[in-house]
């Protein structure tokens, strides 16, 4: 039971991560592999702040999301000025580079990580409370993204995606939409990071490596890029995958890469066999499936 509850916490976190990543690549058509680093920024902000001072947890989480937003602009502004393709390259650099920086800084605990993040839930059963908060936040993020996509802003996103030149000739600013989508997506990742840090009370650079971006990408591609429920389905399914392979009692040094292998294989298979993902056919509001 305890186990199911902790999976629920993780599920909420990953629904936020996959939905926000889907906003960036599925709806925005931007490609970035730097989602884990924004996740990390949120986590480390909460960790560092709460270890060094007593701070109201929701404020710390908000600051984490805010920092992720600011950093997202540092990444997107120079790259998108050139083209969407450049964002990919700079995101690789950002992901790898910023992680290196974190490993070298002392106040982040360096390569061995930051522990002793204080417990902020001392009422009721800790895990259950966290599970409730996690699911609630995930629902909030989901509803927010849904509101954005289905409202007037959603038309901007679709049109920009369909034909950027014509979009611009109508008097609309394509760059702004991209920056906003990227910013919101990264801020949500930062939000998830804060939740993660407070639940596990320990953050470590290895948790935010490229394996994370594989996992999140798999959730989005398998669930269905550009559909709203797709990333949710993807997150739920893929969280159960480690359990599915857990019965193979391989040592941990094999399990981690094996997981990565399975995630990458799934993406490759889906890219060729069912590029629209699992959910696209069922979702009225999905954008044109990317091929």
């Amino acid at each position, binding site marked *: 039971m305890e186990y199911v509850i902790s999976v629920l916490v993780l599920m909420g976190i990953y629904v936020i991560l996959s939905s926000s990543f889907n906003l960036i690549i599925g709806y925005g058509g931007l490609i970035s592999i730097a989602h884990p680093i924004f996740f990390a920024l949120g986590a480390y902000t909460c960790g560092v702040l709460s270890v060094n001072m007593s701070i109201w947890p929701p404020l710390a989480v908000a600051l984490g999301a805010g920092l992720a937003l600011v950093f997202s602009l540092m990444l997107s502004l120079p790259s998108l000025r050139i083209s969407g393709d450049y964002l990919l*390259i700079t995101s690789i650099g950002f992901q790898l580079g910023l992680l290196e920086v974190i490993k*070298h800084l002392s106040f982040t605990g360096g390569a061995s990580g930051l522990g002793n993040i204080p417990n902020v839930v001392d009422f009721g059963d800790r895990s259950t409370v966290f599970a409730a908060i996690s699911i609630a936040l995930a629902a909030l993020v989901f509803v927010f993204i849904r509101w954005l996509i289905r409202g007037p802003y959603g038309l901007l996103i679709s049109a920009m995606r369909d034909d950027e030149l014509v979009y611009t000739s109508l008097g609309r600013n394509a760059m702004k939409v991209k920056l906003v989508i990227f910013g919101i997506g990264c801020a949500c990742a930062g939000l998830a990071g804060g939740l993660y840090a407070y639940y596990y009370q320990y953050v470590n650079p290895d948790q935010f490596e490229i394996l994370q971006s594989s996992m999140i990408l798999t959730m989005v591609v398998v669930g269905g890029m550009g559909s709203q429920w797709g990333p949710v389905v993807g997150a739920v399914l893929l969280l159960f995958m480690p359990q599915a392979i857990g019965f193979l009692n391989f040592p941990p040094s094999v399990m981690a890469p094996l997981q*990565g292998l399975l995630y990458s294989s799934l993406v490759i298979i889906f890219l060729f066999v069912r590029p629209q993902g699992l959910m696209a056919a069922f979702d009225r509001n999905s954008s044109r499936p990317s091929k």
Partner: protein
Amino acid sequence: MTFSILLQILWTGLAISSYAVLFAMSFSLILKVVKIWNFAQAGFMCLVFYSLYVCLNIFDWPMWIGVLASFFITSVSAIGFFRYGIETLRARNSTSLTFFILTLVVSQFMGYFFAMCFGTEPISITKNIMSPVIMVGGIVISHWDLQALGLTTLTVLTLFVIMHKTHLGQFMSAVADHPTLARLYGIDVNRVYLYTIVLACLLMTVGMYLFGLKVAMLPNTPLQMMLLAVIATLLGGMGQVFGAAAAAILLSLLQSLSVFVIPSEWQSLLIYAFLFLTILFFPQGFSWQTMKSFLGGGKT
């Protein structure tokens, strides 16, 4: 800091730039002719390395057979990837997003595969990665340095001859500039792609051979080395394979020289700083025009 230390660092930096040049040229060549950002290159670099490792350490084959075998394996895999992966997506008119995802994920896939097979400890292809040295005028020159520079120069010259003095080279230029037109002129575009991929694999093989003789590697390492190849390609200008080579030498040397200015633990970050500077100031590649327009504020 004496002159001889500077010279030593320059020499060693130049020698190390050898494999950087080869990886950069490989990436740039594929981008120029096949027109894809081949992030799967990191995966293929792993393939070269680990197949060489297996040939040498498990089958106990001599080095030259191992190198040939890994070149063959990588070429076949790369051709297969292109034919069944890239071509399929092209036939579907997939967006560049899909291509990026595919090439990146293929690299990740290979990385995980090799991590699963070979573990998380760094391994090297030969038991001993120290090579004998000679002293010339106060500078330490290792046999590896000489081999690296010699082999790389030979490879670059060969590529130059192929690209500028052979029919294949002309076809490659034609396909790079205008594939549809090339096809209309009777050039077998797919065959040109094939040869290009094989050439890129050759560059990768020589590069990984040299790299493997010097460094113990993790499956993750090629992805980080790719970054230098990508930056060099950007800096050298899209479609300029030899420009990418020059940029790779420059970046490598800067990395080596930076030891004077930056504490060693921050050195690994230099490459990322280069990336951002390139994107900010030279996204179309370095050219004197861009430089002048920055300095003089004149019209380009």
